[in-house]
């Protein structure tokens, strides 16, 4: 059928926006520009008008279409609805001021009192702590509130206590810190029936006419949580092994003040 072929072509055409993102990210174009362009392109290829009829742009021919929401309107609505993703900016003045008065150095010094502490072990404990938080139903963006001010300086401090770190190793420890937060957050949150993940699954399945029990969802996610912990143990143990490899072996406890994550270098 010709109409069917045309429909398929239109369906593939809509993926051009996705293709633009892939190309843009690979070529490292400015991400915000790539994402906004892909939004406009996808909307236009799907036949959406630029603006909704409620906007004053209805006086310009071709800008709006009866009964269809505009690309810019949809973009603005989602941008406003998702302001909660950017609330971490509120934490920055207190953390910035505390860092100026030695927060990161003190975090690093604190961890040195615990003899058995290593970067990897600390991250295992942190991942577990985030899973517990998730199970308690607390949704928290841990990167700004825990990782940057506390956990990351601690793990750098623990790793630096036996010798100076190469820039590549510091980079790897920082990446592992961000990862530990994600691992704990993603897989721990489904242990609580009031968290977004379980609620979403419950709602979607109900919409599809299938009733699932919330506690059944929690029960069925347990093996995945266990697997996520075991894999974390494995990866963070490997990090410690890597860090124990050959390097300048002089203790550099006096270098700890250089240990901060920084912010304006």
């Amino acid at each position, binding site marked *: 059928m010709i109409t069917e072929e045309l429909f398929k072509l239109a369906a593939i055409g809509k*993926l051009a*926006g*996705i293709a633009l*993102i892939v190309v843009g990210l690979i070529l490292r174009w*400015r991400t*915000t520009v790539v994402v906004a362009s892909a*939004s406009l392109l*996808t909307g236009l290829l799907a036949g*959406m008008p630029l603006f909704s009829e409620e906007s004053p742009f209805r006086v310009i021919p071709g800008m709006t279409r009866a009964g269809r929401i505009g690309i*810019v309107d*949809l*973009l*603005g*609505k*989602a*941008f*406003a609805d998702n*302001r909660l993703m*950017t*609330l971490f*900016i509120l934490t*920055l*003045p*207190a*953390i*910035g*001021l505390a*860092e*100026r*008065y*030695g927060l990161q*150095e*003190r975090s690093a010094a604190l961890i040195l009192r615990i003899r058995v502490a290593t970067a990897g072990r600390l991250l295992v404990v942190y991942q577990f702590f985030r899973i517990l938080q998730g199970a308690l*139903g607390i949704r928290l*963006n841990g*990167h*700004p*509130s825990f990782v940057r*001010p*506390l956990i990351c300086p601690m793990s750098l401090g623990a790793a630096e206590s036996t010798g100076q770190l190469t820039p590549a190793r510091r*980079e790897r420890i*920082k990446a*592992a810190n*961000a*990862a530990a*937060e*994600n691992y704990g957050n*993603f*897989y721990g949150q489904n242990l609580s029936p*009031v968290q*977004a*993940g379980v609620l979403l699954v419950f709602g979607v*399945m109900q919409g*599809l006419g*299938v009733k699932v029990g919330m506690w059944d969802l929690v029960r069925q*996610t347990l093996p995945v949580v266990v*697997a996520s912990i075991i*894999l974390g143990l494995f990866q963070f143990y490997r990090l410690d092994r890597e860090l124990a490899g050959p390097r300048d072996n002089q203790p550099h406890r006096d270098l700890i003040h250089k240990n901060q994550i920084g*912010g*304006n270098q």
Partner: protein
Amino acid sequence: MIGADQLMARFLTLDLVYAITGLLLLAFGLTTAGDRHHQRRYVSGIFWIILGVIFLGGSLLPHWTTGLLALVLVVLDGSGRVGQGGPAGGDSASKPSEAAASSISPHDPGNRIFWPVILIPAATFLLALLFRQAGLDANRGALVGLGLGSLLAMAIAKHLTRATLALLIREGRRLNEAMGPVNILPQLLASLGAILAAANIGQPIAAAIRHLVPGDNLFLMVLANCLGMALLTILLGNSFAAFPVIASGVMLPLLVIPFGVDPALAAIITLTAGSSGTLMTPMAANFNIVPAALLNLDDRYGVIRYQLSYALALWAFHVIWLWAVIRFF
């Protein structure tokens, strides 16, 4: 008389927290624009002021206005003129050497410097609990707690260090500008997600799976289900956006119904198979790209690179586990 829970419901709203954030962003933007040592003061200042306006007015402005303002932000960032003051012209007070020197100042707060930082998660936790006790949305409570906790933390940090308000704002601005326009990426990606959903982008993917995979092979169908979920999550950057598409297009009609699978098992495993995709994609900027900026990684994909092997291994576990439970239990 109105009860405490009614007071909470009426005054402790998300809009209150958004307004506080908006005012802070205005303060960042205005001080940047007025900072003569800042090499890109005007464009940078306008960028944060516009974001502040969106935070203050986002619930009142018509959506097309917010949309246009967001596009202006993108154009400003695209001009390459939104950024830090630069190494030569930056705030002299924010040099790290001086930060280290200040720790031996007469106002050294010692380990009390941890108080403001611990207060933020504590307030988040406390308000989430209070909201649940009052029968309100605990997630909203957490966000309100984050806002109020941050304000209180600012006050305590300022008191402990005897810093001026200007220094407090400047330190916040320093961290904010070090991260830069990447901060708006999560919101921008959410907008893209909304447009992809409106354009029904999941349909061709679900159709392709139906086309390619033989319907009677359980293992291949489990594989296609988990692979489709991970791929769509990589594209959308959000497993929650991908789940309804895969659940309705693949999981329910091709796996749960024909093979008589427990829907709770299939659904939650499909969801977290998507989380592996989240760990691998720059589209999930709030989890992978913003933290790389927050921790000053040189490689903006450094977090994704680290997570890749973990994500692949855990994804494989999802496939094998889902298949094995259906097959053997």
